[in-house]
């Protein structure tokens, strides 16, 4: 009898069981935490048409001449070639604990999912803009596995034009001392529901930085889960969420400290216009032996118009006893005294408001790639007019 391939094993009973368990337990609903999730009935009733223009990776042109040994390939090819990091990634995805919503993405992680392989290099790799949609036929989600080898250093940019799919899953595995920054603009989709899950695994002294911008669409939910598995690993996240009228933006973050001497940062800025809603759930999980953990979370929200809503939910689950963990959340409107101060110096009210809003988000905006920063500044300015 032929031995099952690792891929079949990956798609085997454990995976199915986990998926069905998640569904049987019931996805989170409005009654449980109404501010955290989009109405699930409408979501499940929605039919996602397959686009003719989207082909499996193996049948479509691939980017050529990628620099410094960077490769795009499929999961099945990666397994066949025994690409370093692929089995670790699949094993992690099989055993990791996801929140209920992630079960919607798991079917997309199969043999045809895309792998972006970043080899080790003495010098930083050039910046890479991720491909537009990588959705497979008969799947409701895109899936991308980024495998970053020891010591590699790279900036990944996901421009808004790449946001053509409703659901997307990204895994980033960082080997020792790898350094990855992911900059993503999640404002480009016109789908009714936009959902994503980013799963990150950090080995010793690896560094991962995420800068993300959420805006638009009737409902968006973006989850980030980082596992700090090696000492001296650092995960940082900056999330800028701008809820325009009618928008529902939800971000869910879980920094899982599994190793001692690791560090995580969450820096969130939320803006809400009339009837816009933005929420943030930020969890810090510190395992029993993850001593000397440093974990910081700060979420600040500004409601710009009456009817706008913002929410913060810090969750700290700490089992180690020698850690530094902080969290802070603030919500307010534009400071009237500051507005008057600026006006008294000759600055008209609309310009004064812009100055204060720019100042509020600047700290978060600085985390973005310079190219994206400029685009976001102009997009936000346009939205505030």
């Amino acid at each position, binding site marked *: 009898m032929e031995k099952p391939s690792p891929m079949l094993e990956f798609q085997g009973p454990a995976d199915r069981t986990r998926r069905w368990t998640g569904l049987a337990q019931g996805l989170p609903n409005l009654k449980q935490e109404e501010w955290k999730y989009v109405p699930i009935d409408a979501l499940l009733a929605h039919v996602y048409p397959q686009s003719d223009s989207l082909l499996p990776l193996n049948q479509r042109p691939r980017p050529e001449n990628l620099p410094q040994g960077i490769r795009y390939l499929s999961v099945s090819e990666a397994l066949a070639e025994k690409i370093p990091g692929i089995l670790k990634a699949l094993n992690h995805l099989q055993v990791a604990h996801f929140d209920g919503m992630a079960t919607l993405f798991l079917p997309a992680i199969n043999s045809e999912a895309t792998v972006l392989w970043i080899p080790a290099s003495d010098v930083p790799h050039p910046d890479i803009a991720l491909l537009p949609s990588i959705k497979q036929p008969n799947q409701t989600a895109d899936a991308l596995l980024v495998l970053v080898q020891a010591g590699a250093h790279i900036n990944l940019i996901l421009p808004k034009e790449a946001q053509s799919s409703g659901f997307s899953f990204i895994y980033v595995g960082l080997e020792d001392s790898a350094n990855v920054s992911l900059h993503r603009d999640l404002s480009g989709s016109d789908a009714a529901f936009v959902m994503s899950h980013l799963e990150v695994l950090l080995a010793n002294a690896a560094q991962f930085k995420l800068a993300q911008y959420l805006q638009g669409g009737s409902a968006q939910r973006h989850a980030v889960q980082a596992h700090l598995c090696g000492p001296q690993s650092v995960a940082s996240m900056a999330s800028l969420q701008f809820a325009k009228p009618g928008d529902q933006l939800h971000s869910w973050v879980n920094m899982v400290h599994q190793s001692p001497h690791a560090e995580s940062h969450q820096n969130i800025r939320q803006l809400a216009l009339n009837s816009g809603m933005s929420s943030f759930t930020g969890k810090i999980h510190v395992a029993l032996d993850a001593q000397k953990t440093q974990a910081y979370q700060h979420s600040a929200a500004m409601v710009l118009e009456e009817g706008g809503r913002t929410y913060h939910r810090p969750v700290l689950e700490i089992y180690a006893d020698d850690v530094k963990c902080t969290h802070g959340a603030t919500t307010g409107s534009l400071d009237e005294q500051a507005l*008057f*101060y600026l*006006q*008294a110096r000759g600055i008209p009210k609309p*310009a004064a408001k812009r100055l204060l809003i*720019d100042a509020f988000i600047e700290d978060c905006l600085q985390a973005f790639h310079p190219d994206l920063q400029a685009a976001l500044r102009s997009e936000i300015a346009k939205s505030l007019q």
Partner: protein
Amino acid sequence: MLEIKNLHASIDGKPILKGVNLRINAGEVHAIMGPNGSGKSTLASIIAGNEAYEITQGDILFEGNSLFDLQPHQRAAAGVFLAFQYPVEIPGVSMMNFMKTAINEIRAQNGLQPMEAAAFLKLVREKQALVELDAKLANRSVNQGFSGGEKKRNEVFQMAMLNPTLAVLDETDSGLDIDALRIVAQGVNALRNPNNAFLVITHYQRLLDYIVPDVVHVLANGKIIKTGNKDLALELEAKGYDWILETTQA
């Protein structure tokens, strides 16, 4: 230059100013003194255009035009400046960006082109020297992390940058040590000329040793109850506010 006519104002229905009359000509320095709660800061805020107060009666004319027809930024562009008693901290807005925006907005309202970067930097250096403001503060956020004295110096620095026609100094001396007081007063005196005017609000005579006023007013219970020359401030210092309140009631 400035004429306040029978000004009545209230906040949350509570009357604060109850008929203030005041006239300031170009080239003059007027001081307003008075006990706590007499309405001095309210008057300053209203001149600058703070919308928190309701004007129930009266008018303020600036160079012949009612200030009530102008928004706060338009008043600033017309030449009115308020040095705040409690300068507001604005995290994230750098002093340089703030000053550059303010100057160019005022220039735009007066039909002028934005100031060239080199000219702006030269002006900044010149005015910083005038009030002995640490150049490093220019790279920080507006008033954030400034000491009390630095905040007040920063107000005078902004005044020097914007070169107003009428400057209202709301208790600029509060929280200043003697050296800082001298430096701030030195800055104000350097800006005095026959074409501008100052309204200096203070509790204490000490500031008026450095900025010598032409006229001193005493504001109490929402009204100017006595006007005199600089000697009035000395008399108040010696006898206290109770003296003048009793004298005027009698």
